[in-house]
């Protein structure tokens, strides 16, 4: 130990004093008189003040450095000691690492997904300068708005646009659908996306670089086998030749959450879609790179100023409602889907935090158990003069080390977990979610691991070192057993948290089952769907109309088909169209007189095919043709909303749309379910296909038996080159509406299973520990003639009592959770009797198993052997 520490000055003073005294003594011994000797000693020491000050300074610095070194060496020792301790008895550390890896891994997975959904930047240089531009709340921009703004902007170095369309790709054997991104000519150069092969196209935003295409790296690999010779080849898209000029950089997917196969210039849209530029009201998703030194606020001001000069804006300004814009960070998901994603992320993060808390309680309990075995080690070291803080630090080093090892495993789990999450997105959806862990996730996991290590390690460490030294040394470990209230508390905590999760999972599973059994208001069973999209073949409107008329006619004639009709959208199919409407009698300038309605476009026979009853009026007929008076069929909710208490048929309604068109109601259909399960009464309108042409339609056919194949053949015969998927049951299409619920129930179920597993491990470990400490007692009891059942009952009672307390608390918490999420549950009472019966049964069964396993093993021991072993 370094003496004289604390104040370095005292050490210096003492040293100098000794030196002078000894020098004086020496000089006196040599015959000098004492007074002279003292003067001579100080003379030889020279520049006294200055020297002492310099010595003080050096000593201070030296002490600081030595403290640091000692501290670091201490940590080194702690880590080495921790490694030795953990390796010496690896069983418990292995269980701890496993438990923590599951807990931390669940967190890393969800964090990784949430970060990917909400925060991840686009994979280009300087991505923080990218911003997205929206019109209105979070709508894409009409093409003319985009072109006008992109051509004039100065706050953006480049303003790019992207929009997904489906087109047919001509191949040797027919046509296959591909996802094409229509992108502005400055898309690649403006965002900073390089070509992995060949080149990208470039030019002013609206420029036409010709019939060229850039392949996405993924499509190049999967469809063309990464063929280096693909550049220069010609692709037939919508029956028109496009030259492949390059392959995009491997990391680039899209400026949005899409997964395009090819990128084609925006100027090609007319050729690809088969409609004149003016009639295509498709909007564009706009992403720009801010010019050096410009802010999003400046960009917004500029965009709004530019937009105010647009012809389309003039009308809006006249009505006193100028169009607003938004300029927002280009990170994570686009704003329109951000809200639900944020909510889901927060909910899931809270959920996995709960799982990690269970894991921590579990591990803390295991360590407490071990601490009891190490009481003597601690007592010996305390007796040897090691400070308690030092021991706590060393135990914490052990737990943080364990947590870090678990963290490494957790990252591996997160990689697997995020793949699983990404796989929950239905394969058919051309959506790209980048959920894979990256540096941010690694940092999060490391931080979480250290925090976890301290969290679960602190209480056991404090407990282990709070030893009555003499008592522990004197007492034999066996006699030291006291029922630990702390250990029971941890067990209660994990059982109750696990119960809450199980209850939640049960409620959501019930909800999902109810949703599946729900009556949508029409008879979907026996209806087959066949999606058709004539834009894949670049049909113009006249050809498209003729084609769909032929489809309806042929489909009805297919053997086994009892009724057939076409519709633009499938109810609960995941897509919707909506616009505000009002009675024609109301004031069109009064925005408040409009209310939101959703609509679909259908052909005559739609209601009969789906067996969706018409309550009044008539179905569409061939007489409702393009030039005839515009007609509409409304549902009961719309009739009630527009003309309460009146007869709806014969009334006229007005849509908030270009030209404020008016439609006469010819029929009233029964209410059905349209956008989401459990939605309230939703005003819904049906327009006749003949008066509202659409390029993509779904053929619904009510069939007897397996007519699906014949249906597809009949349509294929009309145009063999048109890409067609297989016909499928309508109920499968309706499943899209269930995707969020299914993902939610799946995740909750997974985490609940994890919590149950953790609780089982915890109960097992605590019981095993307790039984091990009482082997002798059990042996004595058995030897004295106690029946095995009596001993078993004793053990069961002790542990299951604790489990019971946790269960009751957990059920109360679960009821609270149920009430909290009641609005998300479909047709399930938050206190659903089935869930609240099943959860305790499952939990008690698992707990009993976890207690019985170690208990029976202890009982199987020969009492003599057990006693001798002690």
């Amino acid at each position, binding site marked *: 130990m*370094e*003496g*004289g520490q604390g104040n370095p000055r005292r*050490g210096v003073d*003492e*040293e*100098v004093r*000794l*030196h002078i005294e*000894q*020098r004086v003594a*020496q000089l006196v011994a040599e015959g000098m008189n004492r007074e002279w000797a003292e003067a001579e000693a100080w003379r*030889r*020491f*020279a*520049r*006294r003040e200055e*020297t002492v000050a*310099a*010595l003080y300074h*050096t*000593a201070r*610095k*030296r002490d600081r*450095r030595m403290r640091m070194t000692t501290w670091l060496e201490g940590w080194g020792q702690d880590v080495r000691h921790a490694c030795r301790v953990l390796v010496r008895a690896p069983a418990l550390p292995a269980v701890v690492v496993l438990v923590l890896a599951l807990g931390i891994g669940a967190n890393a997975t969800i964090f990784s997904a949430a970060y990917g959904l909400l925060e991840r930047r686009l994979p280009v240089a300087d991505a923080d300068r990218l911003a997205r531009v929206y019109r209105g709340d979070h709508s894409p921009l009409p093409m003319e708005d985009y072109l006008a703004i992109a051509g004039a902007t100065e706050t953006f170095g480049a303003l790019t646009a992207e929009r997904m369309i489906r087109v047919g790709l001509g191949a040797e054997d027919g046509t296959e659908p591909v996802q094409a991104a229509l992108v502005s000519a400055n898309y690649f150069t403006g965002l900073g996306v390089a070509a992995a092969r060949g080149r990208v196209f470039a030019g002013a935003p609206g420029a036409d670089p010709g019939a060229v295409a850039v392949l996405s790296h993924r499509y190049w690999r999967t469809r063309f086998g990464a063929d280096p010779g693909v550049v220069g080849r010609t692709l037939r898209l919508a029956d028109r030749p496009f030259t492949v000029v390059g392959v995009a950089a491997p990391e680039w997917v899209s400026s949005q959450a899409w997964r395009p196969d090819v990128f084609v210039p925006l100027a090609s849209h007319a050729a690809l879609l088969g409609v004149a530029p003016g009639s295509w009201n498709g909007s564009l998703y706009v992403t720009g790179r801010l010019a050096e030194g410009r802010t999003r606020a400046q960009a917004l001001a500029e965009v709004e100023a530019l937009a105010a000069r647009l012809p389309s804006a003039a009308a809006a300004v006249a009505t006193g409602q100028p169009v607003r814009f938004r300029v927002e960070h280009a990170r994570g998901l686009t704003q329109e889907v951000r809200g639900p994603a944020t909510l889901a992320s927060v909910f899931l993060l809270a959920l996995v935090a709960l799982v990690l808390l269970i894991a921590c309680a579990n591990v803390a309990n295991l360590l407490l158990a071990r601490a009891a075995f190490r009481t003597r080690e601690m007592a010996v070291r305390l007796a040897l003069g090691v400070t308690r803080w030092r021991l706590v630090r060393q135990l914490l080093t052990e737990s943080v080390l364990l947590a870090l090892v678990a963290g490494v495993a957790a990252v591996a789990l997160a990689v697997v977990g995020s793949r699983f999450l990404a796989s929950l997105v239905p394969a058919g959806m051309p959506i790209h979610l980048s959920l894979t862990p990256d540096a941010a996730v690694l940092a999060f996991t490391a931080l979480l691991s250290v925090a976890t290590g301290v969290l679960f390690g602190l209480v056991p460490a404090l407990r282990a070192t709070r030893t009555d030294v003499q008592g522990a040394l004197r007492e034999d470990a066996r006699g030291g057993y006291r029922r630990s209230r702390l250990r029971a508390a941890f067990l209660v905590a994990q059982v109750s948290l696990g119960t809450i999760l199980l209850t939640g999972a049960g409620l959501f599973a019930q909800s999902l089952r109810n949703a599946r059994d729900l009556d949508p208001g029409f008879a979907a069973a026996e209806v087959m769907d066949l999606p058709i999209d004539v834009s894949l073949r670049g049909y113009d409107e006249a050809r498209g109309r003729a084609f769909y008329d032929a489809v309806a006619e042929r489909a009805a004639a297919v053997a086994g088909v009892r009724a057939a009709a076409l519709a633009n959208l499938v109810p609960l199919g995941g897509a919707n169209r909506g616009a505000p409407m009002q009675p024609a009698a109301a004031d069109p300038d009064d925005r408040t007189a409009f209310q939101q309605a959703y609509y679909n476009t259908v052909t005559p026979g739609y209601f009969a095919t789906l067996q969706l009853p018409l309550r009044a009026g008539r179905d569409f007929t061939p007489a409702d043709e393009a030039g005839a008076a515009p007609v509409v069929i409304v549902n009961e909710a719309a009739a009630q909303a527009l003309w309460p208490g009146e007869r709806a048929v014969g009334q006229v309604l007005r849509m908030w749309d270009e030209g404020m068109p008016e439609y006469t109601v010819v029929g009233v259909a029964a209410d059905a379910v349209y956008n989401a399960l459990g939605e309230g009464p939703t005003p819904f309108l049906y327009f006749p296909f003949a008066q509202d042409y659409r390029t993509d339609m779904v053929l619904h056919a009510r069939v007897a038996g397996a007519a699906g194949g014949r249906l597809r053949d009949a349509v294929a015969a009309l145009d063999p080159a048109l890409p067609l998927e297989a016909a499928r049951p309508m109920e499968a299409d309706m499943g899209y509406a269930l995707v969020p619920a299914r993902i939610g129930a799946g995740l909750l179920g997974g985490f609940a299973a994890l919590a149950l597993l953790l609780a089982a491990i915890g109960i097992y470990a605590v019981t095993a520990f307790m039984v091990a400490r009482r082997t002798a007692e059990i042996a004595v009891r058995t030897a004295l003639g106690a029946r095995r059942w009596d001993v078993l009952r004793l053990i069961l009672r002790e542990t299951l009592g604790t489990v019971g307390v946790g269960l009751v608390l957990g059920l109360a918490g679960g009821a609270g959770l149920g009430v909290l999420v009641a609005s998300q549950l479909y047709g399930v009472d938050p206190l659903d009797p089935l869930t609240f019966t099943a959860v305790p049964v499952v939990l008690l069964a698992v707990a009993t198993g976890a207690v019985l396993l170690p208990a029976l093993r202890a009982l199987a021991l020969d009492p003599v052997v057990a006693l001798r072993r002690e």
Partner: protein
Amino acid sequence: MLEPLSVLKGTLDMLALKALTWRPMHGFELTRFLEERSEHRMELEDAALYQALYRMEKRGLVAAEWGVTEENRRARFYSITPKGQRELDRQTAWWLRYADTVTGLVTESPGGR
């Protein structure tokens, strides 16, 4: 009697390190050791020696520990560390080369031998 030699700048560290290779010593002991070994031909500045010791301690060339002298006084005993030993070897080698060169230069007479 010849005028005492004042210690050349930079050589004090080397002398102190060398002395400590004999045994650990406290400050005054070290002063006396150097005075006696040099047969009082060298005049050390006591303050400079302490400053050198502190500096070298900070650099890890010597280590210090409180102990008790023969007269039962508390004193700080300095010892040379392995790092200090390496430094001493380096400085000694340098000094020998230096001294050799200087000696050669000043003893050479014009016109050679």
